[in-house]
């Protein structure tokens, strides 16, 4: 009996406690909960008792100390530079950021300012999460074209940095095996590149001739590898109409790419999908991989052991021009924002050169304007990674700016992984083309009606050498 009484009282206490905690939690949530975009809150700044409008902002960098600090200092500067608005930022872990944004959009709960990965922006613009930017005239003049996110002729987002890829190699190694060192004007073509890989692999000095980073599943696959497909003449989606992937993803050029891609793994030239992410991080640096296809962000750690011996080489030209990926994280204004004016003002504030330089120096990415690049540590004239800026200007090929990209990226990633793992090339590409096309059709063409809207990948500026 005593045991029962004790038990009953424990249960009662627990129930009471839980009800109290829920009430506390919810009410504590009340005032400090993220206000709906634009709700006025009373924020007492030191000394001032004015009511400022709060601008809420979401950012994808939770857990990354450096980015967070830079962003916070910019926000501080902005908050102190005027007294109409105050910006508050909420960090999200990058790996689940998109899911959180989509869920919030579904619930009608987006903040004023969000950042969005470049190629995803058209989908968010089409779906109605974003509204076009309203920046002052000329604000975007100096910006690299790939840092300006456009959809249906309007600017929806702008990036404070750009990223570029290149082949990392060592001069001593290439010289040793008599491999010509390519330049921006004269990159390797398919035969030369392939021969170089074979030579390096045959030397026995390395585990693998080239590291493509197959360990980085996710957006790296389309970002890092679709430029190869495009350089062969294929594409994720037919860019002339954006209404189908047939012929682009599974045409003769794509098949040629697919077969070459598969051969890399069959011939053992490249570590495959089972590569450890630790090996991706250290393989080239420790000399186990002869060359590495990676972005500018890996430059610092590659520079350290090799110094002057490090080469940063342009992407090969497989027939349709040398190409690298383009478009990184960009900032936009949400469609439901009640404070579009303030949001736009803040974004424009962030676009100042000094902040571009701060980001670049902090996270090693390419600043979006030439003037900022000239002032940065890594991309100024004579600085070690100046060449990345040139590559970005000359070779960057956007992932297809279409709302279909969301699905297409996942399909592309799977196709390339499957082909690397030995799937039938033509079947895998067919399946990918079908899935992407079906998705476009199911969405009413995503706003495209089938008319020609621009050059295909085989007719664009890079291909025609313009």
């Amino acid at each position, binding site marked *: 009996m005593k045991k029962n009484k004790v038990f009953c009282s424990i249960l009662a206490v627990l129930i009471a406690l839980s009800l109290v905690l829920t009430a506390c939690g919810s009410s504590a949530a009340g005032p400090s909960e993220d206000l709906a975009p634009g709700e006025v809150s009373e924020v007492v700044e030191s000394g001032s008792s004015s009511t400022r409008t709060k601008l809420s902002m979401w950012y994808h960098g939770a857990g990354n100390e450096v980015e967070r600090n830079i962003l916070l200092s910019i926000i501080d500067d902005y908050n102190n530079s005027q007294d109409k608005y105050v910006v508050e930022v909420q960090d999200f872990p990058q790996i689940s950021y998109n*899911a959180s944004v989509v869920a919030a959009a579904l619930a009608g709960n987006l903040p004023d300012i969000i950042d969005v990965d470049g190629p995803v922006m058209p989908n968010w613009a089409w779906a109605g999460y974003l509204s076009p930017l309203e920046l002052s005239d000329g604000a975007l003049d100096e910006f690299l074209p790939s840092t300006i996110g456009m959809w249906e002729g309007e600017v929806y987002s702008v990036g404070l940095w750009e990223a570029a890829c290149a082949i990392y190699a060592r001069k001593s190694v290439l010289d040793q095996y008599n491999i010509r060192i390519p330049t921006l004007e004269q990159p390797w073509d398919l035969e030369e590149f392939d021969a170089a890989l074979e030579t390096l692999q045959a030397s026995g000095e390395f585990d693998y001739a080239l590291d493509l980073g197959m360990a980085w599943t996710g957006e790296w696959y389309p970002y890092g590898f679709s430029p190869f497909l495009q350089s062969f003449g294929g594409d994720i989606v037919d860019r002339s109409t954006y209404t189908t992937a047939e012929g682009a993803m599974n045409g003769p050029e794509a098949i040629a790419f697919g077969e070459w891609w598969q051969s890399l793994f069959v011939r053992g030239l490249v570590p495959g999908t089972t590569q450890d992410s630790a090996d991706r991080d250290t393989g080239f640096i420790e000399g186990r991989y002869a060359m590495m296809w990676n972005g500018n962000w890996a430059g610092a*750690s590659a520079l350290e052991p090799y110094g002057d011996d490090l080469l940063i080489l342009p992407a090969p030209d497989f027939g349709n021009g040398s190409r690298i990926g383009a478009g990184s994280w960009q900032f936009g204004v949400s469609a439901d924002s009640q404070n579009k004016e303030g949001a736009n003002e803040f974004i424009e504030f962030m676009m100042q050169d000094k902040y571009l330089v701060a980001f670049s120096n902090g996270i090693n990415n390419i600043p979006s304007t030439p003037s900022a690049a000239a002032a940065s540590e890594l991309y100024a004239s004579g600085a070690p990674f100046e060449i990345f800026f040139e590559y970005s200007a000359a070779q960057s090929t956007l992932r297809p700016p279409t709302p279909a990209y969301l699905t297409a990226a996942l399909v592309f990633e799977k196709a390339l992984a499957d082909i690397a793992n030995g799937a039938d090339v033509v079947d895998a590409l067919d399946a990918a083309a079908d899935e992407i096309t079906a998705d476009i059709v199911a969405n009413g063409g995503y706003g495209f009606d089938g008319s020609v809207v621009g050059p295909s990948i085989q007719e664009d500026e890079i291909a025609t050498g313009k």
Partner: protein
Amino acid sequence: MNISLTIKNKRRLSTFVRYGLMIILALIFALPIVFMIVSSFKPHFQLLQDSSSLRAFLPVGDLSVNNYFDAFARAPISLFVFNSVLVTLVTVTLGLLVNSMMGFALASMRWKGKDIMLLVIIATLILPFETIAVPLLMVVSRLPWIGAGGITQGWLNSYHVQIIPFIVDAFSIFLFVQHFKSQPYELIEAARMDGAGWLRIYAQVIVPISGPVFATAAILRGLFMWNQYLWPIMVTQSEQYRPVMVGLGYFYQLSTSNTTGILPWGEVMAYLSIITIPIIVLFLVMQQAFIESIASTGIKG
């Protein structure tokens, strides 16, 4: 003389074999966790190197608590743990109340619709959460909530969105039904003769002797809530509401924006240990009660 020796040896042999088998199995079950905990004290490169040999389980080399300090610096771990504890505790407690009442009504009372209800509950047992996650999100974003700021629409980004949809649980109800059914009906009979109301019977007759099944339901539900992954990602937006599983993402720095370009495995192990060890300890403390509870809940013949 000879016969008894053989029997004794036989028994010794079988004990030896039994113990041997149990020890090997124990190693298989315990070693991965030992690996996790031991690795959390090792620096990044040593961790990776050791993971290919026996050293993975041995606390050797350059041991320190640096990973833990770094982990706490990278993410507000205490906040996440607090959130998980809060959400788990409240959901489990309210769930015990709600599910046991339903279980009692189904097991020991007579009412129309009881059979259909039981069928529906069994049907919901089949549904994995992932299949209704998005529709649930749609429902939950349209529900009104009365809070400190008046009536607002949408439950996202709160504690209650992590709690209320999970209070009712078909498996718990099922456990309660099984258990209550196996109680002798005479107890209820006697109470009815004494003129007790049904609610009274539930609270003062049945519940007090059902400690074991309550403990079982609490622990199973608690594990489920603590380890939730998909839902919190979808519904928590402010850091202040995030539970431990969402916090894991903080350590997966995708290299495109990571200056060091390295996945901090040491910190990851530290974080995994932080979110796992308390549960293990809790279990060790409560295990006697828990094991007994499942044993007596029993799926009786």
